């Protein structure tokens, strides 16, 4: 086990190094000078040079990579070119939107998917099953930003139940803040819930066909009882894996939804920073997200290895 752990840790470290290099080098070739962007069309050459120097843009590629990557190791994400504030602070600020949004969407998705999946599995082949499966097909196929636009049209513009965008901030109270995250969370949750419901259903059906369920049924449990008492727990493993993956997806993948609803989250920060050529912010946020995904994957693998020692040899 220790050997396996060390090996996995080494490859985790290597992955992170490679990822940081890829991110840094990709952004190195981005055309567009942040200094020129900030000073605009009447800037003079000496003014630009002064600003570039101030921003630390004049060092060699290797120097700048090492100073950035070195900073990351000790938790220093650098200083934003445009806002001149520590990137870590900006990320912290945006996490207060992105993290609750991801959790909210995940909660909604789970709350919808569990009953739907269980219901469909327990009535396999019935109208309920067909209906749930049909809706989930639509849910997977619908572009979430379009769904978001339609919800804005109906619930914000016509019914005026919700605001069409923006985030009131947690200062405005928990309820108000949650309300301003509701439409985006629903838009994000719909496709995830659809996927999750399908996984839940098929995982349950797989489990239901296994021997121990047959035994339970033979002992006189009804199909529904067998499902609730025995199958559910066993079917949860793949479902939980999907939930884990969805969480990191929601954290990083909300970028378009954040744009539709004008939410000051991480994805939007990246988008704004790309157009402002605030590359240090882009690098650090993307690196943070990659780090999150890699670590989540690592933990999932590790859990599997603990649960099922046979897997240690694989891969």
């Amino acid at each position, binding site marked *: 086990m220790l050997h396996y752990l060390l090996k996995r840790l080494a490859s985790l470290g290597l992955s992170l190094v490679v990822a940081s290099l890829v991110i840094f080098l990709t952004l190195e070739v981005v*055309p*567009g*000078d*942040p200094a*020129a*962007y*900030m*000073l*605009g*069309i*009447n*800037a*003079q050459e*000496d*003014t630009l040079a*002064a*600003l570039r120097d*101030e921003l630390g843009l004049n060092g060699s590629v290797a120097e700048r990579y090492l100073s950035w990557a070195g900073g990351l190791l000790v*938790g220093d994400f650098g200083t934003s070119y*445009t*806002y*001149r*504030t*520590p990137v*870590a*602070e*900006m*990320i*912290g*600020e*945006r*996490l*207060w939107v992105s993290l609750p949004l991801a959790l909210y969407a995940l909660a909604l998705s789970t709350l919808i998917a569990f009953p739907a999946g269980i219901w469909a599995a327990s009535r396999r082949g019935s109208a309920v099953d067909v209906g749930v499966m049909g809706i989930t097909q639509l849910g997977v196929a619908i572009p979430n930003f379009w769904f978001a636009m339609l919800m*804005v049209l109906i619930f*914000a*513009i016509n019914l*005026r139940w919700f*605001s*069409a*965008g*923006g*985030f009131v*901030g*947690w*200062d405005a109270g928990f309820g108000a803040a949650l309300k301003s995250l509701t439409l985006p969370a629903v838009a994000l949750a719909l496709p995830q819930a659809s996927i999750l419901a399908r996984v839940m259903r098929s995982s349950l059906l797989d489990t239901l066909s296994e021997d121990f369920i047959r035994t339970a049924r033979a002992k006189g449990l009804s199909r529904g009882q067998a499902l609730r008492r025995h199958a559910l727990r066993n079917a949860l493993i793949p479902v939980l894996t999907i939930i884990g993956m969805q969480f990191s997806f929601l954290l990083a993948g909300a970028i378009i939804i954040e*744009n*539709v*609803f*004008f939410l*000051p989250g991480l994805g*939007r*920060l990246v988008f*704004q920073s*790309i*157009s*402002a*050529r605030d590359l240090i912010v882009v690098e650090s946020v993307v690196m943070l997200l990659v780090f999150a995904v890699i670590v989540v994957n690592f933990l999932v693998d590790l859990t599997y290895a603990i649960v099922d020692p046979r897997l240690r040899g694989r891969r």
Partner: protein
Amino acid sequence: MTMDYQKAGRYFKLGLISTAALAATAGIALAKSDIVVAMQLEPPHLDPTSAAAGAIDSVLYSNVFEGLTRFGPDGSVNPGLAKGWEISEDGKTYTFMLREGVTFHDGSAMDAEDVKFSLDRARAEDSANAQKALFEGIESVEVVDPLTVKVTLAAPNGSFLFNMAWGDAVIVAPETIADIKTTPIGTGAFTFKNWVQGDKIDLEKNAAYWGTPAKLDKVSFKFISDPTAAFAAVMAEDVDAFVGFPAPENLPQFEADPRFQVLVGSTEGETILSTNNKMPPFDNVKVRKALAHAIDRQAIIDGAMFGYGTPIGTHFAPHNPDYVDLTANSAYDPKMAKALLAEAGYADGFKTTLKLPPPSYARRGGEIIAAQLRAVGIEAEISNLEWAQWLEQVFRGKDYGLTIVSHTEPFDIGIYARPDYYFQYDNPSFQQLMTDLGAEADPAKRSALLATAQETISGDYVNGYLFQLAYPTVANAKVQGLWKDAPTQATDLTAVYWQ
């Protein structure tokens, strides 16, 4: 452990807000004294003297920072921190008399030393001022006494007082300059309170203001870049006013709604189809003339701006008394355009690039122009650029055939005298015109020179002249005192009040 700081800051803020909310409920019977003003762009930082970002001035100009002179709502140049000035016979020395009793928001006095510091800082070798050219003619700045400053110019400059009214020329203090980018300390009628990056900037009334005090107690500038979100925020009355409203297509809905007023003002923004005059085939005046006749301005104004905008035929603001209407020079005439192309040897048309920056006037206008050019055989390949790319490729690199951009600086026809400017127009007689204009003081002769200048660039078809950008403000019907026009980038709220 930044996260913990963040959390602590948040709880702290929470406390502040709830007391403020209590106070607000208690004073509910009084007239409304706070306002939320939205705009599209957020300032990158808060130092108007070291960035070109107009958003900085849109928030801070005249509200927080003031200069020796200041722009009025009609673009006139009025006394600011200088209550008056004397100009020497030779026009080279300006003696400014400063107002008494002016203090910065930190309580320190504003005096001649601060003026000298501000001007010297702006014109210094290592200055990061985006409009360094405004200060170029200054030879020396001397402190005569605490309330008198003498500025000596190398040569007479008819627009010096105009230059000093720019947001890039505001007066700052040496003691607070280090933190100006996050904590701006000026002399204006409002003090800076708080900036939630990506969201809003809060200002408060300056109780110790030297002049007429502001009528509002609290001001929030909210930044909403997305046109859809802008529409929604105004409709839901989340904001009391939106200056420079980004979606002209939504204005009729606001006009029809009694809750709102729509002010459509003028700007200094000549929106033009900039043409690379050095790049073949645009080095041929016939091709440029064909281009001009291939464009249907009204269709662009209707299609891209939903009717808001004044057609122009040269690079000059129509509301300027010296404007000459030359739109007939480039009337829409696709047949003539084709004939001209054939004459120039491009009977089968040609291919070129059309590089578009982000604003919707450029993106939508670009699609319309590309379609109009296609109709006469010119294939303009559109690429949508962000500002940083546009600056690098088009503005500095001059690697483009055509582009669309609004030149928002006031009175900027002088850019045509710069052969290295991005559209690369090199005409010695025009350059002579501008030199003559600089030396001319007689208003009638200046007018005549300006008319000739406008006719020259229009007759040379340097660029495609499209329209003067409109400046729409949507506000609650009860808000009074907002500027209608935008003679400079500013949202002067010092005279705004609730009816």
